[in-house]
């Protein structure tokens, strides 16, 4: 009988993608892993199998018939990824074989692992902290090289290390504040208020850096979302097709062809870019198109960057102005399409005029920048580079290898809480508030960081006090 608690059961699953391949790997983890392996591979029974060693053997079914020739790598308790006794079975990459192997393991008492359960167990067994656990998922899910680098960095514990450094600095400050309260009669050299303020400001900066990195971290992980918007028939769909390098959207001469939101993705300079085409914005009585227009606006709201497309020969019209002012507050790139139709001198005039118009629009919407203006033609293949270069410019200088980026919403939220609390601590110190109040506020900040790391409060502060100070009753 399986133990009642799921966490006590031994789990198994296919670790490589389903389908045919040269080899497949089946993983098994839990108290019974070794017994199950020995039962499935009678050839290993009399061998004293050792951790981290691979054994070539035959895996057999309950009738002692061969299922496959396999290589079993065994990992002992505490020495495995999950922290439990576990093994990896490399077999021939045939789905029929892997299915038979899994069935055999089930028969012997293992159950199918839930999604992410191996990592869950690694966390539960203290092999990795929460930040690392989240990173494992990112590593698997990473779709671009840069995202993978960031995730691997988190998995190595580099992001944890930065949070640990922040935690340690907070504890130092708290220890000094607490010492000034609990040992005020000991003749301690109490830390100078200004040094405390300096330290806390540095903590605040470090936290801000982590917070700021979330935007890049998120974009690296989930991709950069750009949404095309504009009046009907200005060439939004053609531009999308150019970017994703295939005929994803239907392009016709008829205004209002695109009615639903069309989403596709491409990779550019290591960044995943999600491109959305939307219905052109106009007053319409067509029910379907009307829904499409509403969806367009919603889509624009969720974009990282909006691309407003208009006809270069028409310039920014009164209708455009209305639509532009309706775009949610965010970065907007203005694209004058079909500029191949304009003679060079007309183009120059049009550019000057459009820039002026954008300038006046920017007065109403400060998030607009008249310099975010491109003249191009969807018929010209180089328009992909022109567009994407412009869009990814701000991420060009990110040092993916050396910067810690936080990509989880949980870490982001906790960092924000901590940063706010630390700001309050600095304020309270500057206003000479009572130490017991300052300590209270700082504890709030520390709690947030410790939540990120999955640490507990415990006696760390007192331990630090005794380390730093000479205290005698």
């Amino acid at each position, binding site marked *: 009988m399986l133990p009642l608690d799921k966490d006590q059961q031994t789990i198994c699953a296919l670790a490589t993608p389903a389908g045919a391949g040269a080899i497949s*790997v089946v993983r098994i983890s839990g108290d019974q892993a070794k017994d199950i392996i020995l039962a499935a591979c009678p050839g290993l029974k009399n061998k004293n199998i050792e951790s981290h060693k691979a054994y070539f053997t035959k895996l057999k079914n309950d009738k002692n018939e061969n299922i496959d020739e396999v290589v079993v790598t065994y990992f002992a308790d505490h020495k495995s990824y999950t922290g439990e006794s576990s093994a990896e079975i490399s077999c021939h990459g045939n789905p029929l074989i892997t299915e038979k192997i899994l069935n055999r393991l089930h028969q012997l008492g293992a159950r*199918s692992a839930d*999604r992410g359960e*191996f990592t869950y167990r690694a966390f*539960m067994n203290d092999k990795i902290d929460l930040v690392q656990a989240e990173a494992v998922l990112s590593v*698997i899910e990473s779709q671009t090289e840069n995202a993978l680098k960031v995730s691997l960095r988190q998995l190595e514990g580099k992001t944890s290390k930065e949070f640990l450094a922040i935690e340690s600095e907070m504890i130092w400050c708290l220890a000094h504040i607490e010492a000034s309260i609990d040992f005020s009669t000991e003749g301690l050299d109490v830390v100078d208020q200004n040094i405390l303020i300096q330290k806390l400001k540095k903590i605040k900066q470090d936290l801000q850096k982590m917070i700021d990195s979330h935007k890049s971290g998120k974009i690296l992980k989930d991709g950069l979302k750009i949404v095309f918007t504009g009046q009907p028939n200005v060439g939004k769909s053609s531009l999308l097709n150019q970017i994703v390098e295939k005929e994803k959207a239907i392009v016709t001469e008829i205004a209002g062809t695109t009615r639903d939101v069309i989403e596709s993705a491409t990779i550019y300079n290591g960044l995943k870019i999600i491109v959305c085409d939307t219905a052109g914005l106009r007053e319409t009585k067509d029910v379907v198109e009307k829904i499409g227009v509403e969806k367009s606006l919603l889509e624009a709201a969720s974009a990282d960057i909006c691309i407003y497309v208009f006809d270069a020969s028409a310039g920014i019209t009164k209708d455009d102005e209305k639509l532009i002012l309706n775009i949610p507050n965010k970065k907007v790139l203005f694209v004058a399409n079909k500029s191949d139709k304009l003679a060079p001198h007309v183009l120059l005039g049009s550019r000057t005029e459009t820039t002026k118009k954008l300038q006046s629009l920017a007065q109403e919407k400060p998030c607009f920048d008249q310099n975010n203006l491109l003249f191009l033609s969807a018929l010209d293949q180089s328009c992909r580079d022109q567009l994407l270069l412009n869009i990814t410019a701000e991420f060009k200088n990110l040092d993916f290898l050396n910067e810690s980026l936080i990509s989880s919403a949980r870490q982001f939220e906790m960092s924000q809480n901590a940063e706010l609390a630390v700001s309050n601590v600095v304020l309270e110190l500057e206003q000479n508030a009572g130490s017991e109040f300052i300590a*209270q506020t700082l504890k*709030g900040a520390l709690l947030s960081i410790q939540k990120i790391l999955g640490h507990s409060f415990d006696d760390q502060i007192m331990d630090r006090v005794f380390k730093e100070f000479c205290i005698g009753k």
Partner: protein
Amino acid sequence: MNKSNFDIIVVGAGHAGIEACLAPSRLGLKTLLVTTNLDRIGYMSCNPSIGGLAKGHMVREIDVLGGQMGQTADQTCIQFKRLNSSKGPAVRGTRTQNDKHLYSDMQKKIISEQENLSVLQGEVKKLILKNNECVGVVLHDGSEIFSKKVIITTGTFMNGVMHVGLEQTAGGRVGDAASVGISDQLASLGFVVQRLKTGTPARLHKDSIDWSKTTPQVGDEKFYPFSFKSDRNFYLPQILCYLSYTSEKTHDIIRANLDKSPMYCGIIEGVGPRYCPSIEDKITRFADKIAHQTFLEPEGLTSDLIYLQGISTSLPQDVQDQFLRTIAGLENVKVVRYGYAVEYDFIEPTQIHHRLETRPIKNLFLAGQINGTSGYEEAAAQGFIAGVNAAHSVLEKPEFILERDQAYAGVLIDDLVTKGTREPYRMFTSRAEHRLILREDNTIDRLSEISRKLGIVSEKQLDELNIIKEKREKLFADLKEKVIYPKAETNALIVSMGSSALLKPATAEEFLRRPEINFPHLTALGFKYEPDEVVTEAVEIQVKYSGYVKRQYEVIEQSKKMENFEIPKSIQYSEIKGLSKEEVDKLNRVIPRTLGQAARISGVNPSAIQAIMVYLKGADKRSKELGIEKFKTSTAAQ
């Protein structure tokens, strides 16, 4: 004395033992106090003072509940200080220097006059056990005394060994023999018994000190007694203490003789308190400090002895003579009693319940240093709680447990029985996560209703406390009702107080929240109140603290979930995946009532707490509770 028929026997007459025997006898139970030395009842073995930061809080707490320490400290106080008076009220602490002989005399008198309480000089060698229940004690002469409950408060005496230099003598204190027998018996019953160490400095003759080289330290003029029953005027004349410093020379001598210190050549195995290091420790660990302060504290009004605070040592006598003479003012000092270290047995406190009854042996209670604490106040608080619980157990009343948000005494016991301790445990304000509400000023607001239920303090005295409480409540209500309008002349007055003008009407309570405003300012604005400091001070603090108290609750609220998360008694930790063997052992020993308590057990990791929570919540909700539902979207094999 009928030796065979007591409700409760208390073994040991130190600060824990006194409270432990007074509480039950005041509740009408027939109680016996056994001590090895009738002359040492309530003796101050180390520093001649009571209270201090966080410790003063506990003295006040047990005073409101019916303890004795506060009153005796008040009446024998020879110097009074409110520590941290420049800091916020939550972290202020009352401390008295006491005439140690008068203190001991008064405690002895209280005990001898207490109804229902008998005292016996003798040494308890053994506990009488019947089916894992304690039913009495065996004395040194072999005689047996039976009782329903036994409370042991033997302090540093269990297998006590004193060290001076490399010499060792058995004993729990200079002049007193060690008690041998009980801890060995407890160990043989399976209790985890460990060693701790503490130390005391030399006592000096006052006439051999050149006082001109020291700095006099004056006490406070205003007396805020510990006890609500005490007079608000000093009972005794107030004296001075003196401040002096060690020198480089002191440190050189000590350094040169470290090989003669039992701490440094490995003779002492017990762990000493980090907050109260010996002078040997101080100069070794903080080598760059060129001088260490020491307070010279008279042991009494008529005593010739001076206690040398901060210089506890176990170096040989000749070395003590040498280095003491390098301290300013002590050039020709005459040592009356040399400093020494004492090593003693303590019972790992995770083996006792919150009610201070041991887990393995029923009807056996432990309190004080035997549980690994240090300090008279920590001992008294435990003694009181043990005494009440032993009494309640006889009376078949529910157990008496103070929570962490009710009293420092609650923090103390919860820490001990859930976390255990590796060094002598001393209370600090920073140990209390509810620090901002556990204040000295609101002790009666926190505990007077609980006290009424306990029934040790008389109804009449509680009614007096109630009057104060009601006055505070009324004043608070009045403040909320009184509105100050931003009229020109009012604002002119406010500005002249160094505050900023009102922009809109404000209640007096809102106005009083301003740090620069206090009650006398309100008088000028036409607010009428009775200027009784016992009332106004507490109300003002309550008003000024309210914002921060709210913030504190927000932080606590986050952990409160764990505090309310009960762990069923039937839980089998060994079945939970993800717990190490050590964690399982610790959890089985402590048997935490809630997840919050489990989280405070040292050596139980956060991941273990999560594992327990997951286990208890069942597998279905698991991922969601942990905030790792994202795992579901990942591939199974990771």
